[in-house]
């Protein structure tokens, strides 16, 4: 009648370091393919909207300022994002990619979760327009 079969494991553990990862103090390296925060490169975007259409969480919004001159602003709601990577997959011009460094996204307010990507002047233009209207930042899809 064998009892206490786990004895060897238990005894060896007595002289081992705990397997627990002490997360906030000790950080393990992250995998290369980790899907973290989304980044967008305005230079290559053609404004096809494929990323917006297939986003399962409605986290993306492409604001067209000037279609001809390719002036777009991508509004990214990091708090809605489910980090599935479908937008990166959909983009034919490889202007989207997901960082494997920016993933500790916890914050105490909503502000850092609304990210406007685009050329600085375009983003500024949008913000100014919103400030002028004194209403909420326009969120209607173009």
């Amino acid at each position, binding site marked *: 009648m*064998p*009892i206490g079969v786990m004895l060897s*494991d238990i005894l060896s553990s007595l002289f081992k370091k705990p397997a627990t990862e002490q997360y906030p103090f000790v950080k393990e390296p992250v995998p290369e*393919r980790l899907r973290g925060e989304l980044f967008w490169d305005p230079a290559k975007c053609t404004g096809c909207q494929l990323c917006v259409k297939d986003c*399962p969480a409605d986290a993306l919004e492409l604001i067209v300022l000037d279609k001809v001159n390719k002036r777009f602003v991508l509004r990214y709601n990091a708090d809605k994002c*489910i980090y*599935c990577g*479908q937008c990166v997959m959909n983009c034919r011009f490889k202007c989207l990619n997901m960082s494997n460094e920016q993933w500790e996204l916890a914050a105490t307010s909503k502000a850092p979760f609304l990210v406007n990507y685009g050329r600085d002047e375009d983003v500024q233009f949008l913000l100014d327009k919103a400030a002028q209207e004194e209403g909420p930042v326009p969120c209607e899809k173009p």
Partner: protein
Amino acid sequence: MEAKVSPQKFIVPIGPQHPALKEPGHFEFTVEGEIITGATVRLGYVHRGIEKSTEDRNWVQNLYLLERICGICSHIHATAYVLGVEALANVTAPPRAQAIRTLVCELERIHSHMLWLGVAAHEGGFDTLFMYSWRDRETVMDLLEGLSGNRVNYSVNVLGGVKIDVDEKQAATIRKGIDFLEGRTQYYMKVVTTDETFLGRTRNVGTMTYDQADALAAVGPTARASGIARDVRADAPYVAYPDFPIKVITERGGDLAARFVVRINELYESYRLVREILDKLPVGELTTRVPRRIPENEAISRVEAPRGELFYYLKSNGTEKPERIKVRTPSICNWATVMNFAIGLKLADMPMILAGIDPCFSCSDRAVIINRKSQSQEWSWEDLRQYGIKYYR
């Protein structure tokens, strides 16, 4: 909790919040002393109305919604769905994609079975086994994380293929991890089959004979522990299972001990399969094109989730959105077995028997719909938020 103590009926409620259940479900056991004389089940605490929601999203978006039905078997839900959609659209994913899907399926099965081993041990008060099996489960979680980028919702599938590729370096890491896990699994097999105190809690507990399991249409490891050789991977091979056939693992016992043995033996089978797939990974494309609009059609997709047969029924109507998606998860099938077998057992055995079928409540329920005698049928997020603010003020 109201005091309802009458000499005839003494009901022990388990759930919706109870330390034995990590997910909400409500069971009422009528007991006489320690012996159970009646049992009922009530689910729906995590019903999210996913089936309804699918009708409002396009085919691609649904993939991610359905992947989130269950955290543990996320990949298999996505696989069942993409197979269904591919059947509707009449396309087939390339062989390499199919093999990678299979690889992730098997890795997921390993992680699910290891998780189950820990949970079942915990329900039996064997916390040491619980801690060790979960520690070793981290190995396979790390493999999945390295492969897909995430620990839980791997998001490997896309319509018509997979997102990720497996290179030599990753294959080597996976092989190494699998070797380690195989050694540990042998050890756990020894523990659950020889440790007398543990066997005292599993042997001849919740025994279900072949005929009973057959009559109640049990699926998955629960059925296989009763000797029913029912496994979709062998019966109706999907993805790359035709090329990498599996051996169906069965046991005769039908009790909890047999369910442990079946699941652990399935781990070995999964290890073998993972190695085989890595050795013979077909070369080629990863994706193929799937049209955005899918003509009117119907498809049924069946796959073997870690818990048993997962059944998807899909109906398209020629638009970008599905007409109807029906999901029948394995846990639903197995509830009947638990409720029928509770009677006559000891209360102390119940948590283990509940855990024995590896229930997944999120799978069984699929809307946060709150109704408090107001006129609304469903609360929007805004209502919910306002309600929350009012409540906590």
